[in-house]
């Protein structure tokens, strides 16, 4: 009896298109969004007011913000991540026997993709709690240390969420992975689409992508160091003044704005953060014995 000839799957039949969309989505919108995100966060280096102003600007989209977030951020990232996993599953890294530079970059591209995936999942939980239902936020997200960011208290809540050693370390690794993945991804994208073809052109592209990656890494660590250099109480005072002005001008409706503000008083949050700090340092001390 004849075995039926294997038929290509939907993914196989459309793999060319899917891979090209995967390649494109890595740059636009995911990569472009990451650049904007890192630059906005780096504005905290200037002042909490600069950062808060940028966040107000983003939130001035109002009820359109979720559409932009889903259309240009979440869905493209999910698409890029899911097909990224499929692509990784189809390869068999062999840097052990073939330790060439481009091959190591190939393996790193996959490793940083996986790190970036877990980091982004954690990051969105840590800052936003994944879902905005009150029940979820109060009973699941906040008790687990998530949903720490309040857009109308941007600098102060970010600063309080960035305490300790572990969280800044996780962010440093995650952001470095993301930046590498984008810079090297642009290089492979240039070959995939046929922009740089000759070895000399590819070498020049490596240099350009390398410089781009280092510059973006500088921006990334600029935004990383922002909350470490910010005093949450000073930031909270500025945020309150900016908020009051927006309410006075009628730009914000205090009723609707409530869920975008920090819930408790700063004193409680600081105390909570301090407890976490001492727990972390105790844990560290226990390990060192």
């Amino acid at each position, binding site marked *: *009896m004849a*075995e039926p000839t294997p038929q290509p799957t939907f993914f196989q*039949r459309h793999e060319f298109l899917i891979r090209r969309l995967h390649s494109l989505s890595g740059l636009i919108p995911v990569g472009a969004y990451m650049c904007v995100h890192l630059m906005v966060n780096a504005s905290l280096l200037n002042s909490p007011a600069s950062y808060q102003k940028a966040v107000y600007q983003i939130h001035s989209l109002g009820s359109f913000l979720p559409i932009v977030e889903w259309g240009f951020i979440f869905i493209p990232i999910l698409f890029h991540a899911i097909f990224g996993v499929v692509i990784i599953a189809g*390869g068999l890294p062999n840097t052990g026997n*073939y330790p060439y530079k481009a*091959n190591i970059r*190939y393996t790193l591209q996959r490793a940083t993709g996986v790190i970036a995936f877990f980091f982004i999942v954690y990051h969105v939980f840590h800052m936003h709690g994944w879902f905005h239902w009150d029940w979820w936020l109060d009973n699941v997200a906040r008790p687990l240390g998530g949903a720490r960011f309040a857009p109308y208290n941007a600098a102060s809540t970010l600063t309080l969420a960035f305490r300790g050693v572990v969280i800044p370390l996780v962010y440093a690794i995650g952001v470095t992975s993301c930046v590498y993945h984008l810079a090297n991804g642009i290089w*492979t994208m240039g*070959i995939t689409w046929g922009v740089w073809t000759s070895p000399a052109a590819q070498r020049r592209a490596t240099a350009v992508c390398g410089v781009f990656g280092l510059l973006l890494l500088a921006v990334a660590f600029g935004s990383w160091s922002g909350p470490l250099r910010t005093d949450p109480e000073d930031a909270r005072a500025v945020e309150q003044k900016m908020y009051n002005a927006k309410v006075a001008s009628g730009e914000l409706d205090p009723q609707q704005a409530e869920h975008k503000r920090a819930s408790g008083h700063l004193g409680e949050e600081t105390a909570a953060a301090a407890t976490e700090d001492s727990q972390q340092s105790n844990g560290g001390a226990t390990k060192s014995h």
Partner: protein
Amino acid sequence: MAEPQSKPASIDSFEVRILRQEAPGRASYWERHRVDYEPQMNVISVLQKIAAKATTIDGRSVTPVAWDCNCLEEICGACTMVINGRVRQACSALVDNLLQQEDPNEIRLEPMSKFPVVRDLMVDRSRLFRALEKARAWVPVDGYYELGPGPRVSPEVQEQAYPLSKCMSCGCCLEACPQYTKVELTRLSGETDEEFQQRKRATYDQSFIGAHAISQIMLFNMHPTGKHEAAARLDQLTAPGGIQICGNAQNCVAVCPKEIPLTTSIARAGRATTAHVIKKWFDR
């Protein structure tokens, strides 16, 4: 006879570790042999000595190790195998270099890992050749009437084409490619030869076509007569198993014994398929 300068100091013999397999689908196992050193040996002469002796290092009598070879001058690709973890031709892998530059104690020989093993170091590379059929790696000139002289090829195109024409279909680029994964089918009970061949071809056609075939497509697409089939070849590059599988690890170009600019071909194929798909979308 004068001793070659490259003779490793004080070596009378060396060990050869071979990954053997009795038949397709059987388990593989390592076997150790000791070979007397002679100056200027290559891996083929090592294998000849091992076959003549057919005795392992611990004195066990074994069947001679099977391997493929033909031209003995790195032109046919038949003796391609994994030597000390790196794919290359056994005929041009010189023992003096292997012992001096890689491992002074032993030489490790394995069959290529991306193709089904026939026996020991012999593999079935039919997927590689099937990819060349899929790629239409020829210039179509067969017909019932005289076609006249072909068009002239400009020196610029000749310079681009010649390096690509040096491909000997050895499979090094495929063995080193992290995106080219092994496809091994076994014949089902009751399946005729023809049915099995057909199933193999269909499965190969859905798997990655490989750097060698992508480069051949670029070679024949730049030939003034071969160009007539350019669209059909580019269709194969966007079909299942096409150029999209490439992950730009660029091992292919690093291991190619003929130094073919495979990654340049891949990037050109990327550009050609981009244009081809856009054209197809908006022209239909």
